[in-house]
């Protein structure tokens, strides 16, 4: 049996990526959203470069956080609504693996594209190449945390009306540490937050799904 897990996992990833591709719209709107939010601030305040540079990290991080929020509560909700979540749960694969697969796919699609576009947006704020590099790194380590936490929130609110918002409520406070460290530009601390999240969040999410289908 075990031998098969690899195969199943590959199919899971293929499924998720294919779906993401067919739903380009979501991906693009998340990106567009990110870009607009980030570009808004310079427009809405006096363009004093020192001021801008000092808020750059914060704005980019919070916007990234929000852009991830927008899509991810649908991570399980769609599958729940059309019954394919039942099917995913009934695959011989342990549910944790399924969760990991889905989050990984999310990271590979939205996550990566957010990270890739950030340096460009950094330019708007006159970030030095050095700051930019630091920011990109912190996002690279931080966004997985955001995604994983979102997965837990999404799983807990399955089939709950207004699930998206409630998931956000639950998740946002938990995102504070990575937000603070990331925006503060302390990459290593973000990594320190990532490690335990990687280990525990998938289990929490899996448990949450079981509970929600109870």
């Amino acid at each position, binding site marked *: 049996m075990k031998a098969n897990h690899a195969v199943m996992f590959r199919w899971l990833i293929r499924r998720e990526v294919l779906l993401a591709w067919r739903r380009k719209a979501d991906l693009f709107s998340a990106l567009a959203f990110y870009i607009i939010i980030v570009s808004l601030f310079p427009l809405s305040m006096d363009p004093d470069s020192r001021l801008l540079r000092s808020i750059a990290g914060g704005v980019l991080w919070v916007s990234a956080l929000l852009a991830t929020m927008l899509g991810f509560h649908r991570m399980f909700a769609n599958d729940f609504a059309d019954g394919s979540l039942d099917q995913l749960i009934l695959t011989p694969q342990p549910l944790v693996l399924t969760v990991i697969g889905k989050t990984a796919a999310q990271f590979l699609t939205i996550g990566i594209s957010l990270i890739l576009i950030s340096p460009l947006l950094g330019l708007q704020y006159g970030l030095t190449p050095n700051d930019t590099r630091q920011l990109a790194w912190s996002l690279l380590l931080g966004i997985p945390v955001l995604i994983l936490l979102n997965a837990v929130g999404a799983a807990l609110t399955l089939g*709950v009306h207004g699930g998206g918002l*409630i998931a956000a409520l639950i998740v946002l406070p938990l995102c504070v540490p990575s937000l*603070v460290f990331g925006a*503060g530009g302390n990459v290593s601390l973000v990594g320190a937050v990532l490690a335990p999240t990687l280990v525990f969040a998938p289990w929490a999410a899996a448990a949450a799904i079981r509970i929600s289908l109870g």
Partner: protein
Amino acid sequence: MGRSGGNTDFPGMKRIMSNWYKFASPPALYPLVNRLIPWFAIPSAILFAAGLYVGFFVAPTDFQQGDVYRVLFIHVPAAWMGMLLYVLMSLYASVGWAYNIRVSSMMASALSITGALFTLISLLTGSLWGKPTWGAWWVWDARMTSTLILFFLYVGFIALQTSIDDPRRADRAGAVIAAVGVVNVPIIYMSVGWWNTLHQGATIRIVQESTIAPTMLAALLIMLAACWLYSVAVVLGRLSCIIAEREHLEIA
């Protein structure tokens, strides 16, 4: 598969559990709970009276801040209770989940509201206090900020539980989020502290009188005890309501 408390998988565990279940069955506890309430309610009322009296009439006026500082007698205990109750809540929730003890989960729900209330009070009194002392209703001081986030954690828990209408599911979901939350609380406090020291400019050190007058200390401690008893009383009250509601639901 629906049951997620791994413990139920050991042979024999089921029996122990079912005993627990009988032992801690809500209907059995209901009368006991109701009988306990006054034993906490009355003393807390007395202590409140005493504490407020000492705090507002006996304790000397602060030479720096004048009489404003007396808010402290409400503010500080509230803040502490807020933090304490969150930990308690998570504990009850987790136990209720792992061992499938309904009362324990109900206890968690009961605690969440009271905890949130105390945290809110500490926030409000804090900012009431902040206006005269710091000249601003709100200051991004580390302690205040982390209290605010603690409040958000409470809100998340409550929102989740109220939005799920199947009580069993609400309990378990709450347990998950409470567990995740309580693990995060220290990290959050640490991060906020780090952030605050990162931008020294903004930190307002709450000036600590080198020596608190003994009457002040007494008042503070009395108020603390009063808040304790109050929380126990209120939580038990809420618990009995929850039991009544759910059992009634199951009878109907």
